[in-house]
């Protein structure tokens, strides 16, 4: 992690290569799960839409339907002169590694994964930090001392959410039980709300009364099952508090939209920089959501505890273990 430059650090290099780039002609590739997953992809769509609204510049887009299309889509956009080509999703790393060297003048952006190429900007988020904070809230809201986690595809990135969440829960209540389930081991796991609901029901039957989902479109089923059972759920990526007001405790917001927007805007201003950007609580890349839909659910004590955890992490007083640093989690 020490190697990772922060957004602020990276911005210092801006400006050098500016004149060479004219107006941006961006393209966005959405990962499996679909553009309207109310989660990860929808967040990147919102970022692109914001850029379009502010600059009036159209962008091109493609929704991946299968793994085979990843490289093809990247190559196609690069060949047609799109710049930057933005793709959200860790699964695109190998495709990007293959395509980026062939188009040295094109800027690529990958979100959620690091690709070490001179023309690629890799945006990663410190999901464990945000997950820790919602874990604190979950533990305080739980009356049964049992909370749940439903992940999408079983990959280290999703384990990172789970591990941060579990650490947050245990920091409040060391005896709490954290149930965890993954939806599947293929890309289809991002879009299977029927199974998501079934997993949530299983956790509810085991006593969970707060369930955090990090499962893309699958999460819709998790949150519905939680709302049906009258328990709390926690949204992910986008602010999902509005989906089931009164049932969604909070959302672990991951500002994919900001990453997409910034990449397009930087290109447009000629200030695009390759390299790694790691966005955490301090940079506003992850956060917990508080709005009119969940204001009644968050007591002043909970808000104070969440803010304290957030401040502690930013100040460095609380260290949240990153699952991806050693592929293991200190708490279960």
């Amino acid at each position, binding site marked *: 992690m020490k190697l990772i430059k922060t957004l602020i650090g990276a911005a210092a290099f801006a400006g050098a290569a500016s004149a060479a780039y004219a107006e941006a002609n961006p393209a966005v590739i959405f990962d499996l799960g679909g553009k309207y997953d109310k989660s990860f992809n929808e967040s990147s769509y919102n970022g692109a839409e914001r850029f379009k609204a502010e600059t009036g510049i159209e962008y091109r887009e493609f929704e991946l339907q299968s793994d085979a299309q990843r490289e093809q889509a990247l190559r196609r956009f690069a060949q047609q002169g799109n710049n930057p080509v933005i793709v959200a999703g860790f699964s695109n790393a190998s495709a990007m590694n293959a395509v980026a060297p062939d188009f040295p003048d094109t800027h690529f952006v990958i979100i959620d994964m690091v690709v070490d190429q001179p023309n690629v900007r890799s945006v990663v988020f410190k999901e464990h930090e945000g997950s820790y904070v919602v874990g604190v809230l979950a533990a305080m809201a739980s009356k049964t001392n049992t909370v749940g986690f439903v992940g999408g595809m079983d990959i280290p990135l999703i384990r990172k959410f789970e591990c941060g969440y579990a650490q947050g829960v245990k920091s409040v209540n060391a005896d709490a039980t954290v149930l965890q389930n993954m939806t599947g081991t293929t890309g289809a796991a991002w879009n299977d709300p029927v199974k998501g609901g079934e997993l949530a029901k299983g956790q509810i039957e085991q006593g969970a009364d707060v369930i955090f989902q990090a499962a893309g479109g699958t999460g819709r*089923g998790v949150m519905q099952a939680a709302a049906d059972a009258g328990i709390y759920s926690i949204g992910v990526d986008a602010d999902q508090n509005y989906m089931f007001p009164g049932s969604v405790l909070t959302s672990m917001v991951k500002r994919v939209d900001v990453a997409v927007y910034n990449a397009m805007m930087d290109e447009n201003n000629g200030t695009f920089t390759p390299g790694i950007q790691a966005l955490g609580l301090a940079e506003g890349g992850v956060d917990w959501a508080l709005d009119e839909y969940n204001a009644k659910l968050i007591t002043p004590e909970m808000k104070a505890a969440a803010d304290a955890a957030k401040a502690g992490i930013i100040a460095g007083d609380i260290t949240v273990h990153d699952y991806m640093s050693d592929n293991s989690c200190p708490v279960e």
Partner: protein
Amino acid sequence: MELLQLMDSAVRLATPLLLAALAGLYSERSGIFDIGLEGKMLMGAFVAGAFSAVAGMPVADGGWGWTHGMAWFGLFMAIIVSVMLSLIHGFASITLRGNQLISGVAINFFAAGTTVLVGQEWFHSGGMTPTLKDNQRFEPITLPFADAVKDVPVLGPIYSDLISGHNIIVYIALAAVPVTWWILFRTRFGLRLRAVGENPAAVDTAGISVIKQRYAAVIIAGVLCGVAGAYLSLGTSAAGFVKDMSAGKGFIALAALIFAKWQPRGVLMAALLFGFLEAIGNKYQSVDLGLFVIPVQFMQALPYILTVVILAGFIGKAVPPAAGGEPYVKER
């Protein structure tokens, strides 16, 4: 208690398989192979979700502003559309004597594409329907006395947790099994239906229309597939349609049908077995045996592995109806 939770989950997961396999039973018993179960179920899921959504939407938002009956209307429309697909399959394979597999595959492709296309046109959210509210779905039914007998040892939890608390379609599916048995094996209609699947020429000689019998069978199959589809979008936590939500269940239903040797009771057993295996795969994701950990991938593949093992080893010879797949040509 854990077993009870597993069985509860198994019943929910088995319901769409059961309905689709019964649909296949009627169709194949009459000599029409139906590989399009998947497509009809998917279309049923979309139509049910879409019409329930539109009917319940406020008039101001372009809906019809109904306040009750949306779910039943969705179910009704799902049946109508699914039967229409069945009639197309019937027309191609009975009247035109085409290849039954090809027409079935065509229905699957047609459904996969049309649902997303029409869904995008109507709701502008990537082929998904809006999330359905409680009264737009089939809600769980608490059977009489479920709360009263909850504390009775053994039988109490079985009645209140396992038998009670499902939605109406689950009960319809379970009731359809004895009804199917009665129709197929105790009525004149059923005898004739089975006869056209075994020896259509004999039925024809007896002065009964093979064509009409087979059309009747595919129409019944369409009705059942429509109900199965409506269950997916209106009876699960998905609370709406998402693309490809049938996720291969139609094909698993075909396997269940072979498993069941084309018998109604066997269909029930096979569907429950598949449901149970899936429930196990969901619940026990990584089993720690002390010496080593069984990985989640294995647990999720278990239903399929067991299917192969049981099909190959234990089921014995499964003999399909003799005239299955053969278009009937009257001798001249």
